[in-house]
């Protein structure tokens, strides 16, 4: 991570040096230009405008009025929204944990056991991910509904139907379904990088399968575990579709609250403030992880 960051900073420096010091453009500037412009136009500017909107006053019927105010943030920090944040963190945490439990064996299998069929299995993993989210969500509604396939099966077995839809279960199931590839792919990449000779060496030195896994494979795959967890947890925090379609009014998440401000309440200013706070929350989390890493928590894996 660290040298990578340094390298990136160096690249940025070189990229700007052309502007700042009046140097002649070199190949690196030309290579960096499209990505820089893209990021500037489609990431930096929109995010900056969104963040600044949170500090402005709401005009009649939600019109933009560029008058400074703290009001939106004061409202967003109201304790009444705390249960929603806690619920969102719990759902995202549960989703991440479930994805890890399901995804690690899967990634391990793909990397160590799948052999010639690996590409086929990877494609099978990705196919659901390529279908439209709405189609997938409606499929789940058909499966989980009161008169759905699953309850039809229960009824055939003489069991009473269960209300699967509109529960924490159905929302987390939807989240796991959508975000599993985000967990499996980084895990697979990091397991794939482990030199097989290390595992063989462990065996040569007398380690059994379990010991070799615990002492060699698992520690070496930890960066992948971490990357997978982050890639799963963060989009979960902003998801609103699963809660909207598979959940009930009692599974309302931060994403729903934000979506409501933009589409229903015409209160983009408040929505921006909520979005900014969610960003701050996530960036703080990422920074904390970075500090832990610096302190050598994952030293053995480097």
């Amino acid at each position, binding site marked *: 991570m660290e040298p990578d960051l340094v390298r990136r900073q160096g690249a940025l420096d070189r990229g700007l040096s052309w502007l700042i010091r009046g140097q002649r453009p070199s190949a690196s500037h030309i290579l960096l230009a499209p990505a820089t412009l893209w990021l500037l136009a*489609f990431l930096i*500017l*929109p*995010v900056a*405008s*969104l963040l600044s909107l949170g500090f402005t006053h*709401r*005009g*009649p*019927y*939600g*019109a*933009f009025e560029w008058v400074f105010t703290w009001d939106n943030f004061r409202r967003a920090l109201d304790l*009444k*929204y705390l249960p*929603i944040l806690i619920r969102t963190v719990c759902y995202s945490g549960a989703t991440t944990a479930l994805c890890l439990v399901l995804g690690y064996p899967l990634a391990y299998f793909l990397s160590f056991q799948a052999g010639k069929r690996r590409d086929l299995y990877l494609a099978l993993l990705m196919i659901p991910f390529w279908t439209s*989210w*709405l189609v997938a969500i*409606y499929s789940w509604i058909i499966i989980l*509904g*009161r*008169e759905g396939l699953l309850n039809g099966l229960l009824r055939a077995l003489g069991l009473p139907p269960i*209300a699967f*839809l*509109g529960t924490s279960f159905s929302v987390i199931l939807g989240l796991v379904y959508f975000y599993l590839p985000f967990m499996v792919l980084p895990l697979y990449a990091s397991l794939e990088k482990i030199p097989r000779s290390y595992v063989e060496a462990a065996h040569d030195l007398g380690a059994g399968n379990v010991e070799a896994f615990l002492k060699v494979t698992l520690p070496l795959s930890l960066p992948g575990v971490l990357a997978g967890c982050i890639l799963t947890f963060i989009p979960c925090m902003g998801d*609103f*579709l699963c809660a*909207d*379609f598979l959940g*009930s*009014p*009692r599974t*309302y998440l931060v994403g*729903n*609250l934000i*979506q*409501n*401000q*933009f*589409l*229903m*309440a*015409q*209160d983009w200013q408040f*929505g921006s403030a909520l*979005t900014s706070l969610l960003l701050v929350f996530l960036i703080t989390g990422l920074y904390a992880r970075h500090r832990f890493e610096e302190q050598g928590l994952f030293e053995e894996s480097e």
Partner: protein
Amino acid sequence: MAEPRVSRRDFLRLGLLLPAAGPLLSTLAACAKKPAERVVNFFNWSSYISKEALPGFTAATGVKVNYDVFADEEEMFAKLRSGAMGYDVIVATDYLLPRLRGSNLIAPIPMEDLKNLSNLDPKFLHTPYDPEQRFSVPYLWGTTGIGFNKKLVAKAPTSWWDLWDERYKGRICMLDSPRECIGTALLLKGQPETTTDEKDFEAAKELLLKQKPLVKQYTSATYVDALVAGEAALAMAYSGDVLQAVKENPHLDYALPKEGGYMWVDCMCVLRGAPHLADSVALIDYLLRPDVAAGICNAVHYASPNAAAQPRIDPAVLKDKRVYPPAAVVKNLRYHTPPDPEAYVLWNQTWSDVKAL
């Protein structure tokens, strides 16, 4: 059938695009269009037109109609306000007109070019929501009441309080609409919709929060699916939505509560800066033709304000008290009062809280 209400794409588009990028994009889109082809971009409620109407217009005039639908008026408003859509004609409820005008989104319609305007029942013209009859042309009207599945309820609902009945816990759907839900809560609390007293909104919120544990979903788009599939027993509903779905599930029915419900008139409006004004007016005029208006009424089971169309409407629809409520019932119905900008904030924040808490 109702359309899926939200797409991730919509949200990203709304959330991440600079407001200023909207006009730019629509200009680009306009440039990309072939100048020879005549089109009108029409934005309407879902399940709100007959199959024949638009092809008939194209056959009669050679103008193609790009037809898009919404299931949620607030979302439609958000889209129009973000400015990137390039629509010509929209259908909006009476209640939304002051806000559309206040936000400078709609333009006056050249009424003198509408040869079929005289087909309309005069009581739908020069109304409180458009006293000068400059901005809107009535399209259909209907009511907000209770849709239900006869097989799943002990007895047909007669009161709004039936939506608070503990027996139907988890099988009640409510419209995702501040106007309908808070409006009804205020009505049940005996408060006028014109109130700006925060205490009244607090009381309405309490009432809706008391109901919330029973609510399966707040949705304007999927409640009909839920009724058809038997997932929901009762739903706050728009009249025609339920009556159209009877074809799919004969156990569905619709009732107007004894406390009185809400009625509304959906109007055709032309957007400010509409790129195809003349053809837009032609489309509106075509939809006012008696045969076309009657065809639409027969298909969607919402009432038509078109008096000249009356003889051509299917007698079964015309006599259906759920489509055309008798005068005694209409007396008990009311229009929603459009809130001014300050009250509008109260309505929206109350609704946001009901959903969030």
